[in-house]
């Protein structure tokens, strides 16, 4: 178990970390998600012992390691640039940590054999690492980090240097690997896709602070505040007045309609901000649905995005819906079409204004 308690770091104001507290469980795949410059790499280097925090505590398996140098922490670190030793071949890179630990040659070979078949890098072993492709470098660097059987694996933007196809393939491989090995992993990234696919839990980090921690769906459907909401691409953000507050939820006035949301503690008359994800908006031609919350609107544009379509609708207020290409065809909509907009109360989320 990795615990970070009240870690702060003020580095002439840059890369500052502000009172970070986090707990990562054994075997968990924990993703720290945030925009570039949020201080994510610094936090990882503090966990690894490469920097010492100005204040706060880092413990691993209930042992305070805050003052322990990196070589005594048994942490695997994967940098964004993979940082393979360019004067060694792949095998010597992977062996480096084992040689320092004075692991005997035969045992080293067994470990490398195992990693090489697990990561499918047998054919790269005697290659000069400067000749490897990005994806190959990533795998060799991963093998090097895993060779020492780390207690914790730290991944700093492990996929961002790769092209899209390789990235998708390696993300899949990583998911498999974690399923099998269950190494406690902390992965920092700015990519929501990586976070969604890989994370058991996600921490949102912005400007050196942890803003929200939770399971992926919690983060993506119930963001803590507007900033997080925008970061996770909730495109429907509407300001509303609360007109009733009952057990069933809040009744709010939105665009002339009365809309019911799940329960939140708000005063009657208060302003609030209503959020709903584009994929929770359902489009229909008529009123044939049980959804209580519905508008009529005009389609402004339909953008084909591969796996789905982004439909922008003017209902007096702007609505964005993500629907499948089949739905677009079945509804027969195009720019200018009239369309019904529906959503379930349970999909709505309210954040402070």
């Amino acid at each position, binding site marked *: 178990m990795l615990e970070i308690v009240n870690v702060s770091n003020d580095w002439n104001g840059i890369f500052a970390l502000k009172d970070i507290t986090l707990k990562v469980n054994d075997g968990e795949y924990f993703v720290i998600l945030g925009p570039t410059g949020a201080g994510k790499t610094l936090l990882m280097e503090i966990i*690894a012992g490469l920097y010492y925090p100005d204040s706060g505590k880092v413990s691993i398996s209930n042992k305070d390691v805050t003052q322990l*140098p990196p070589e005594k922490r048994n942490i695997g670190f994967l940098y964004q640039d993979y940082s393979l030793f360019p004067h060694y071949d792949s095998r010597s890179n992977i062996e480096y940590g084992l040689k320092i630990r004075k692991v005997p040659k035969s045992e080293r070979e067994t470990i490398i054999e195992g990693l090489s078949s697990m990561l499918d890098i047998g054919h790269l072993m005697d290659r000069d690492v400067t000749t490897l492709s990005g994806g190959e470098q990533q795998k060799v660097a991963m093998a090097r980090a895993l060779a020492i059987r780390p207690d914790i694996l730290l991944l700093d933007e492990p996929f961002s240097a790769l092209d899209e196809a390789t990235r998708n393939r390696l993300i899949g491989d990583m998911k498999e690997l974690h399923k099998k090995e269950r190494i406690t992993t902390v992965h920092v990234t700015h990519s929501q896709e990586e976070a969604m696919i890989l994370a058991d839990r996600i921490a949102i980090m912005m400007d050196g602070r942890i803003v929200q921690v939770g399971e992926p769906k919690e983060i993506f459907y119930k963001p803590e505040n507007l900033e997080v909401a925008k970061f996770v691409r909730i495109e429907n953000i509407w300001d509303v007045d609360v007109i009733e507050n009952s057990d069933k939820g809040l009744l709010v006035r939105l665009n002339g309609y009365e809309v019911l949301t799940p329960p939140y503690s708000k005063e009657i008359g208060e302003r609030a901000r209503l959020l709903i994800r584009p994929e929770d908006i359902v489009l229909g031609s008529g009123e044939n649905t049980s959804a209580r919350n519905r508008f009529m609107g005009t389609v402004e544009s339909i953008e084909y995005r591969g796996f789905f379509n982004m439909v922008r609708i003017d209902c007096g207020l702007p609505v964005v819906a993500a629907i499948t290409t089949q739905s677009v065809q079945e509804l027969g909509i195009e720019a200018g079409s009239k369309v019904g907009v529906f959503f379930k109360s349970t999909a709505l989320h309210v954040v402070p204004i």
Partner: protein
Amino acid sequence: MRYVEITNSMRKNPLSCIFFLIGLVIILFVVATLFNLIFKTLFLNMEGFRDILNDPAVISSIWLTMYTSFLATLIAMVLGIPLAYVLARHDFFGKQIIESFIDIPVIIPHTVAGIALFSLLMKRGAIGGFFESIGIVFQDSMWGIVAAMLFVSYPFFVNAAKDGFASVNPNLEKVARTLGASQSHAFFHVTLPLSVRHIVSGAIMSWARGVSEFGAVVVIAYYPMIASTLILYRFNTGGLAESQPIAVLLIIMCFITFLAFRLASKKKW
């Protein structure tokens, strides 16, 4: 940031062509100077050149020059590698001041440096007295030559080594640390091997700078005569006819050593 991309061929860039022609003037100046010297000696005064090759005073002064400069470079390396590493990897109060002190010898007139060194290291000088008591004399001795060469040449070594260390991705050291390496293991197994080209080329520059020095050396040690001193002495006593062949021989020796080192250090990084 340094942009290494070459933007364009010169074809169809009239400005670049004009610039190139202007720039050629200075190249021609150097080429003409060297060619004139070498041609005059090797083609018009081959006999004089042959005489020089058999002149023990000349040969021993050239060896002395190369050897003392080698010693100065060795000292620059031993003291300069640690300094360069610290400067490349750390930020600390007073770092800029230390960096200026490294560069000072480059801008100090050579005879001034000689006077300053003589004043410090002569037998009745501040430090020279102490060194004499332990048997090291600088005034008119090999050690004086080494001291003068070290003074003028170490900036070249330290700056090259600093560039070398700075060119090694610090993440490599960090990864080595997480894999279990102590700081010194990471330095000796990762950073130093990866900087070896810069260090060798800094050492060559430093050595060449030492060999080329005259002003500082001549003040602290006119004797034993280094090649530069001998050349000027022969120029003053025998004119061009006697000094040119020595100059050419020295150039040839320098070039050979220079190229030999360069070739020996040709590695990928």
